[in-house]
Every structure is written in structure tokens, then in C-alpha cells.
């Protein structure tokens, strides 16, 4: 940013030098000559009514309102006509000129018929053919074609050796033509860039104003170097002048927008400017060539007022904002207004005519300044977006950290809850199983009436139950068979010792999603109860454990069948309560959402635990 500022400031500092150079480049030399208003296409005869005329001859002063062809003639002598090549240099002419030396045409700026070649800003330079010059006196005729009120005229020609003169011509050509062409191209490029921005962002009218203004300015300045025009001079002048006013009014619109600030529109003022923009070419067209000068001056004053007003308003706003931007704008604005004032005063004849249109030179700093303003706005917007993104990112990070903290708090709470639940479950399991059994064992021992073998049996059951509790906590990943296997592994030696054979007919069971430790314990207790019942009471010789799936019968089935003598079914037991063991099995099966089916008879008992599949 700092660097950009440096460039802008340097350009502004160098600019006056450039203006001074251009203004002083016009030669102040005067020579004495004669002139004749005559439409002849060849030099008029010597006997014609020539009148005395000092060059430079400014038609605005000497022939106001007169156009057509004016012939000039003067004599000159050179020291050594055959030793060096001589040239004639016309620093300024309007519109076109042809040069004759000793009656012979040596060069012309182009067409003398409508549309006349435009050389009003172009230096003309012609070599004098060797052998044409005479020792003593040589006569020069210059034919000049001009238009009324279009700055017609001729400055003093310079005749010298080509080697001495060409440098001056080249320099003038560079400053007036080549530089103008380069600047035009540059401004067209800038304008197209701004318009592309505007097409993508219609809400930023400033880019549109500036883009169109740039194109109009480029067209306007094309008049500085375009020699051969495709339309009659009047229409060209009309277009060029309209372009200038269009440029000025677009700048006024831009300044108005800037001064109005975001959100406000100053609609009436902008409507006025738009109206002027449309009206100017129409008045030129209706007025015709005769009114061009008067209308031009009128519109110059009007547009100058409009642009000055809008610029001043923008300056006031800019000044209130106290930005660097404001100071630059103020500097450029005043420069432009001063230049425009100079031109208006000069065109109106209120100040001496120095034949320099200063307003032309206010364009580069204006474009630089406004271009910088828009670029700066563009860059600031980008920077704002980046800052915004960073802030958003920071906010997102903050939120996700908060979420994470929240989550870990929740997880902690959940863990505590799970621990509490597990503790409760263990307490309940101990109370249901081991606790009760230990009390029974204690009572048996204290009573002294129970046989040691029976006490041992009670204690063994107590240990068995503890093992079930431990097994139920095993993370078995829904695999019930492994736990059934464990049960078998532990009980089988005891069954074998009692002369009972265990037949294992298990099939893979589907994973049951509800196998929490608590539910697993219920299932294991049911099965252990069924097995120990068969071991203790049935008088069996064989126990068959079967697993399978039968959706009609309730889902996954686990059955324990013995070949013992069975027990009394509920129906025949009358109103006596069912055995405590059976009741417990029912209760536990229901706790996991399953059911118990008991099929008992003289040839054995089958206890089937049905578990839902989900």
C-alpha cells in the first residue's frame, strides 16, 4: 500500500513538469509573411491581392468565423543550398497544410477535400528535395485549410538543415502523438478492466461510470492523433465533443455517488446529469456546423459547473472523512477544475490564447487518482473478506472447542452414571445370589443340624453364582454360545461325577442386541437353574442342551432336556404355589423379554427358554 502511494505521489509531482514541457514546446518564433484567402488548389499568382500577415496566424483572432483555404507566402535564403539537405518544419497547423518551394509541391498533410485530414495537433515535417533550392532567394507557399471557429491557423514554419531540425520534430511527434496514442491504449485497457468488474458487480456503479468514462476519454483523445476520419468533419467534431461532455458528466455522476455515500442516491441530481448527457449531442446535431462554436462554449460552461459542483460535494465529503484518499482527490479535483477553467476562459477569449488545451493534461492524474481509489476500494474489500474469514474460522474453532468441552463433560457424566448403574446392578446381583446363599450357609452351620455335605453344597452354589456374575460381565460381543460353553465347562465334571452324560446340540445363534451384563446374568441363571434341577432332582442319566431358532415359538430357543422322572405339573399341584426355582426362572426370562416353556412328564423334563431376536 505504501509503495502504491509512493508511485501516485511521484506521478503527481512529475506531472506539472510534463505540462510545462508541452506548453513551452510551442515555438514562439515569429516571421513576416503574406496571406491570401483563396480556394485555389495551386499557389495563387504573385499579382494576386496578397496582404501582410505575421506568423503565427491564429484564425480565431485574425479571421473569426471564417473557414476555407488561406494561402501564405514568404521568402527565405540559405547559406549553402547544395551542401546539406534542408527541411521545413510546421510545428502547428489547423487543419491541414501543403508546402510548395519555388512553385513545386514538396509535401502535404493529406486530403484537402471533405473530410479534411486532421493535422491540428500533428507536427508536419517535409524534406526539401536537393537541387530545388537556389543560391539567393527561395519562395515558400503554404496552403492551409481550416474551419470557422475550429482553431484554424498556422505557426511560424522553421527551415533549416534536416540534421539540425529533425530532433525538434521527433520530440514534438513523441509528446503530441505517440504519447497520446499510448495513453489512449492504456486508458482503454483500464476502462475495459473496470467494465468487466462492473459487469460482475452491477451494484458497484462507480466501476461502470469509471469504465465508460475511460472509453469516452480514449475516444476523445483519439482526436489528437487520428488524421484521416471516416465521416465529414462536422460529425466527427460532434462525436468528439459529445464524448468529452459524456466523460465529464460520467465523472460528475461518479463524484455524486461518492458524495452521496452508501444508501443515498441524490436521484434528482443524477437525473439532471443523465439528461445533459443525452441532450448535448442532440443540440450539436440540431444546431449544425454554424452553431457548433456557440453551443460548445455554452455546454463547456454548463458541464464545467456541473462537474465542479459534484466534485466539490465529493471533496467536502472526502475532507470530512479525513483520509489520504480525500487529500489526493482534493489535489486532483482542484487541478482539473483549474485546467478546465483555463480552457473555458481561453475559448471564450477572456484570456490570451496560448493554444494549449490544459484540460487534456488533467486526465492522467485524474485517471491515476480515481483508478487508485477504485483499486483501493477493491483491495480493501478483499482484505475485509479475508479478515472476516479469519474471524469466522476463529469463531468456528471457539465453538468446536466449546462443543468438545461440552461433549467431554457429557461423556464424564455418562461415565459416572454408567458406573453408578453398574454398582447398583452388582449390589442387586450379590443380594439376589451370594448374599442369600451365605446367610443360608451361616444359618445351617450355626444350627448344627445340617450335614457338612449339605453345607458344602450351599457354599458351592454360592461360588457358582459368583462365577455367573463374573461371566456375565465378560465382553462377549453378543455371543451367547461362548457363555453357555463356559457353563458347560464348569458343570460337566459334576454331571459326569453324578453319572449323567451331557449332549451338546448347539447351533449358531444370531447376535442378540440386548445382551447387557444384566440380561446375560438373567439368562445364565435360568440355564444354571435348569441344569442343577436336572442334576439334583430328576434322577436323570442324560441331559441334552439344544439351541436353535424358531420364529413361531418366539425367536432364539435354548432348551435343557433330561430323561429323568419329571415333576408334578402345575395343573395337578392344585393351589399349592409353584416351586421357588421355577418362579425365579419365569421372572428372569420375562425380565429379558423372553419366556419359559416347561414340558414335564414321566419320561423327562424339557425346559425351553425363548429369547426375542431383537
Amino acid at each position, binding site marked *: 500500500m505504501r509503495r502504491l502511494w509512493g508511485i501516485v505521489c511521484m506521478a503527481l509531482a512529475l506531472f506539472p513538469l510534463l505540462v510545462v514541457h508541452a506548453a513551452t514546446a510551442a515555438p514562439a518564433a515569429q516571421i513576416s509573411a503574406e496571406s491570401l484567402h483563396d480556394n485555389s488548389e495551386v499557389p495563387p499568382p504573385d499579382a494576386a491581392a496578397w496582404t501582410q500577415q505575421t506568423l503565427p496566424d491564429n484564425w480565431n483572432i485574425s479571421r473569426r468565423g471564417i473557414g476555407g483555404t488561406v494561402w501564405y507566402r514568404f521568402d527565405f535564403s540559405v547559406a549553402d543550398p547544395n551542401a546539406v539537405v534542408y527541411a521545413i518544419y510546421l510545428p502547428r497547423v489547423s487543419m491541414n497544410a501543403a508546402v510548395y518551394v519555388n512553385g513545386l509541391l514538396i509535401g502535404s498533410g493529406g486530403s484537402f477535400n471533405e473530410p479534411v485530414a486532421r493535422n491540428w495537433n500533428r507536427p508536419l515535417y517535409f524534406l526539401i528535395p536537393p537541387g530545388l533550392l537556389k543560391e539567393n532567394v527561395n519562395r515558400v507557399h503554404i496552403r492551409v485549410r481550416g474551419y470557422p471557429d475550429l482553431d484554424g491557423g498556422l505557426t511560424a514554419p522553421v527551415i533549416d538543415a534536416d540534421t539540425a531540425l529533425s530532433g525538434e520534430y521527433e520530440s514534438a511527434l513523441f509528446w503530441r502523438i505517440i504519447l497520446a496514442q499510448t495513453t489512449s491504449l492504456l486508458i482503454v485497457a483500464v476502462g475495459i478492466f473496470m467494465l468487466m468488474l462492473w459487469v460482475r458487480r452491477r451494484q458497484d456503479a462507480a466501476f461502470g461510470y469509471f469504465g465508460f468514462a475511460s472509453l469516452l476519454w480514449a475516444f476523445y483523445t483519439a482526436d489528437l492523433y487520428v488524421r484521416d476520419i471516416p465521416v465529414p468533419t462536422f460529425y466527427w467534431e460532434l462525436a468528439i465533443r459529445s464524448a468529452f461532455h459524456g466523460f465529464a458528466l460520467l465523472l460528475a455522476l461518479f463524484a455524486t455517488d461518492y458524495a452521496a455515500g452508501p444508501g443515498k442516491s441524490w436521484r434528482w441530481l443524477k437525473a439532471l446529469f443523465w439528461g445533459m448527457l443525452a441532450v448535448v449531442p442532440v443540440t450539436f446535431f440540431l444546431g449544425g456546423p454554424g452553431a457548433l462554436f456557440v453551443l460548445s462554449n455554452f455546454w463547456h460552461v454548463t458541464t464545467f459547473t456541473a462537474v465542479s459542483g459534484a466534485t466539490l460535494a465529493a471533496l467536502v465529503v472526502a475532507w470530512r472523512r479525513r483520509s489520504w484518499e480525500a487529500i489526493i482527490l482534493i489535489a486532483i479535483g482542484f487541478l482539473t477544475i483549474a485546467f478546465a477553467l483555463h480552457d473555458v476562459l481561453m475559448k471564450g477569449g477572456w484570456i490570451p490564447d496560448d493554444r494549449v488545451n490544459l484540460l487534456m493534461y488533467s486526465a492522467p492524474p485524474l485517471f491515476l487518482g480515481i483508478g487508485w481509489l477504485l483499486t483501493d476500494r477493491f483491495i480493501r474489500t478483499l482484505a475485509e473478506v479475508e479478515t472476516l474469514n479469519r474471524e469466522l474460522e476463529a469463531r468456528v474453532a471457539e465453538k468446536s472447542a466449546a462443543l468438545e468441552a461440552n461433549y467431554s463433560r457429557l461423556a464424564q457424566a455418562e461415565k459416572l452414571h454408567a458406573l453408578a448403574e453398574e454398582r447398583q446392578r452388582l449390589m442387586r446381583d450379590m443380594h439376589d445370589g451370594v448374599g442369600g446363599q451365605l446367610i443360608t450357609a451361616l444359618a445351617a452351620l450355626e444350627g448344627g443340624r445340617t450335614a457338612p455335605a449339605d453345607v458344602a453344597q450351599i457354599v458351592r452354589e454360592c461360588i457358582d453364582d459368583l462365577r455367573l456374575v463374573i461371566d456375565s460381565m465378560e465382553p462377549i460381543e453378543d455371543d451367547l454360545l*461362548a457363555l453357555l*460353553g463356559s457353563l*458347560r465347562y464348569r458343570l460337566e465334571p*459334576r454331571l459326569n461325577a453324578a453319572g449323567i452324560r451331557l449332549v451338546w446340540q448347539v447351533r449358531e445363534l444370531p447376535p442378540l442386541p440386548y445382551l447387557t451384563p444384566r440380561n446375560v446374568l438373567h439368562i445364565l441363571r435360568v440355564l444354571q437353574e435348569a441344569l442343577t434341577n436336572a442334576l439334583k432332582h430328576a434322577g436323570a442319566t442324560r441331559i441334552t442342551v439344544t439351541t436353535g431358532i424358531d420364529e413361531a415359538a418366539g425367536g432364539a430357543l435354548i432348551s435343557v432336556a433330561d430323561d429323568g422322572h419329571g415333576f408334578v405339573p402345575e395343573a395337578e399341584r392344585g393351589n399349592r404355589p409353584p416351586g421357588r426355582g421355577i418362579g425365579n426362572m419365569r421372572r428372569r426370562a420375562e425380565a429379558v423379554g423372553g419366556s419359559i416353556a416347561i414340558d414335564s412328564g414321566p419320561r423327562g423334563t424339557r425346559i425351553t427358554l425363548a429369547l426375542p431376536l431383537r
Partner: protein
Amino acid sequence: MIRVLLVEDEPGFAERFADIVRSDPEFELIGIAPNCAAARAVLAVERPDILLADLGLPDGSGIDIIRETAARYPDCDIMVVTVFGDEDHVLASIEAGAAGYVLKDSIPGEFLGLLRQLRAGGSPITPVIARKLLTRFKADAARNPESKATTALDAPPGILSPRETEVLTYIAKGFSFNEIADLLGMSAHTVTTHVKRIYQKLAVHSRGEAVFEATQMGLLRQ
């Protein structure tokens, strides 16, 4: 005579166990060590055929005694004695070189049967332990996908052959060795051999894992 050494700090069980062993003339109880130090002292001079070790000892873990014994007397059969057979401890003991566990409240016949089975080359294994082994080897196979073995012969140590996997799967479902032998059409002895090899692979495997972890920590240079 099968020489048995018991490492156990609880006098009640030690006494019950001594009675059971002495009731069978095939076995000789060469000592009861109440802690690690005593066990090491006995093992320095005696060479038991069977070592039975409790895990929670007053001056250390029985797992250390198991590991030392397995290294010192590779022919010695080792078993853990435990109240509950909680599977994580048992698995660690198997990794250290034990061949299974026996519950402390087992009836006398069960005890002696297990000891004989052990001496005959058997390896008792419970369904839950089988399941854990399966999970464990499966996880390792997933970690080394390039070592896919199709037969026991080209299986690298630490990875189960398909047959061994099959045997383990049946054990995990609660089938006995005899039933598995019937189901797979092999002798019960072959089933036992498979189980024994699985135990060896686990021991080798856990040593390999230890080396791997040590290398990771920079303790060993490759």
C-alpha cells in the same frame, strides 16, 4: 510318579489340595510354596513335572513364576489355580507359558483328571478363552494382511491355520474335545495337539509383540 509343586499362599486350599494329591499314588507333592521367594528357592533345586500356581501372591505375581519356570523347564506343565477363572488373568498366564487353569473348588476327581490330562499332553481350554484367542488372532491377521496362510505349514508363527481356527471356533461354542473330534473327523488327541500348538503360537506371538513394542520404544536396535 508325577512330581507336583504348588505355589499357593492360602493354607485352606493348600491343605485341601495336598489331601487330594496324596490320595492318588500316581502323584507326588514335592512342595507347597506360600510366596514367590519360596517358589524360586524350590525351583532352584527341584524340577517338578507339574507346576500349579496361584496368581496373587504376597510378594509378587504368579505370572512371573510361570514365566521363569517355562523358560527354565520347558517340559514342565504349568497350570494356574484360580477361584473364578477370570479370563484376562488366565490369558496373561497362557501367554507366560501356562497351559490352562483349574478352579479351586473343583471336586477331587476333576482335579486329578485335569492333572492327568495335562501330563498326557492335553491342554484344557474354556470356551470364553477360545473366543478371546480367536478375536485376538483375527485382529493380528487384520494388522498384517500380507501374511495370509492357507495351511498350517506355511503359516508364520503367531498366525492360526484354518484347521486351528476351526478347532478354536468349536471350542468357543462349548463343544468338548471328543465332540470336536467327531465333528471334524479326527482323533481327540489331534484336537489336543492343535490346542497345544495354538498356545505355543500365542506365547511366540506375544514374545514377538513384546519385541515389536520394545523396538518401537527404542529399547532394541534392529
